[in-house]
Each structure stands twice: as structure tokens, then as C-alpha cells.
């Protein structure tokens, strides 16, 4: 039986290469920050550059969602309508990530 492969979509293939100039200090700093995130320097620079102008981050939204879920689980029995409304408000913040 032929195994299927998970292929990256054409639009997500990284076919372009560019180089950037950095000072020794900048290079060390970028490497350190990428390592702290568990990312390659390339992925770190791309993610930071592409999403840099965005005030909300995935980590922030996930933390907020987890706090909301916990609060809603306490409220659920007493006020289920409010739970739905709160979850919708949090979901509006998720739209900011896109």
C-alpha cells in the first residue's frame, strides 16, 4: 500500500532566500531569543517580522482562554447564557490574531 505524505501547500513553501546584515551583538541576541522560544533563527525572524505589529500573541490568547474556561466552568450552572456571551467576547479577541 502506498503511504500518503503530508504535503505543505504550495503557498506555504519557503522557496525564497534572503540574507540580512547584523552586528555581532544583534546576531547573538537574535540567536538567544530564538533559542529561548525553541525556534530556529529563520523561523524566529519570519514569525517576528510577519506578526510583529500585532499586539496579541498566541501565548497571550491561550492564557486568556484558559482563565476564561476556568471562570466559565464555575459560572456554568448558575448563568449559562452569560458563559456563552463571555466566550463570544473572548473569541472576538482571537480575531485580532488573524
Amino acid at each position: 500500500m502506498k503511504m500518503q505524505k503530508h504535503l505543505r501547500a504550495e503557498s506555504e513553501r519557503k522557496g525564497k532566500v534572503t540574507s540580512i546584515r547584523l552586528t555581532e551583538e544583534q546576531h547573538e541576541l537574535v540567536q538567544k531569543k530564538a533559542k529561548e522560544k525553541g525556534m530556529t533563527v529563520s523561523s524566529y525572524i519570519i514569525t517576528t517580522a510577519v506578526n510583529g505589529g500585532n499586539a496579541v500573541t498566541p501565548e497571550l490568547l491561550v492564557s486568556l482562554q484558559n482563565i476564561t474556561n476556568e471562570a466559565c466552568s464555575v459560572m456554568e450552572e448558575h448563568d449559562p447564557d452569560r458563559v456563552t456571551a463571555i466566550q463570544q467576547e473572548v473569541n472576538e479577541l482571537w480575531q485580532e490574531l488573524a
Partner: protein
Amino acid sequence: MARISVIRNTYGGSQYLKNALNYVTDSRAMFVGGYGVNPCDPNISYDQMMAIRRYFGKTSGNPLVHIVVAYNNQVQDIDTAAMYGNQCAQYFANRFQVLYCTHAKDFHCGNFHTHIIINSVSYINGQMIQT
């Protein structure tokens, strides 16, 4: 004891993710919980998982890892089953979005089983999950 099945090679892209979230949260789900996603609505959970994937430019590829934990007969009530499901989900939750749902017996051993759906892209650094 519990029997654990891991479905890690899933095909069909984001539609598979949507189908899986809808499947595990359907009317058979007796307890639903989530980390990094809204557990009350599978469509919102899907949007939130896709938002992470878009952020890191990884909407294609393997969309999820699906784990099924089937408990043996020592687990006799939904609260205990849900607690174990939560503990399993927490293991992944510090790096990945997770939706978990506990069902009564329908095809595995014991009285209850928990489905755990994990977004394969980490919300911390965009890395794909390694199984």
C-alpha cells in the same frame, strides 16, 4: 489500566480537523473540556486552532493528533473518567491547544473513554507536534 490509541497521521487537511472536533463533541459527549480553545463550541475551537496555524504559516500538513484513552472497569463514573481525561490533556496543554471529550462506552474497553484532539502546531513556537 487504560488502553490508549494514537491516531497521528490524519489526512484531509483542515476539513479533517473540523470533522474530528464535531465528532468528539457530538451528543454522546458527557464531559467536554479544553485548553487554549473554547470547549463550548467546536466551530469556535476550530477557528481558534486555525488562527494559531495561520499565525505560524502552517495551515496545511497534518492537522491534528487524536488520542483515545479507554479506561478499564475500575473507572465507574463520569467524574473520574473526566478527571483522568483532564490529566492527559494537561500533559500537552503547555505547548498545544487541546480539546478533550469523555464518552460512555461505545466501542472500546470499559465504561468510558476520552477523546483528546491536539492541534499539531504549537502555540508557543509554531513547531509541529512530534509523536
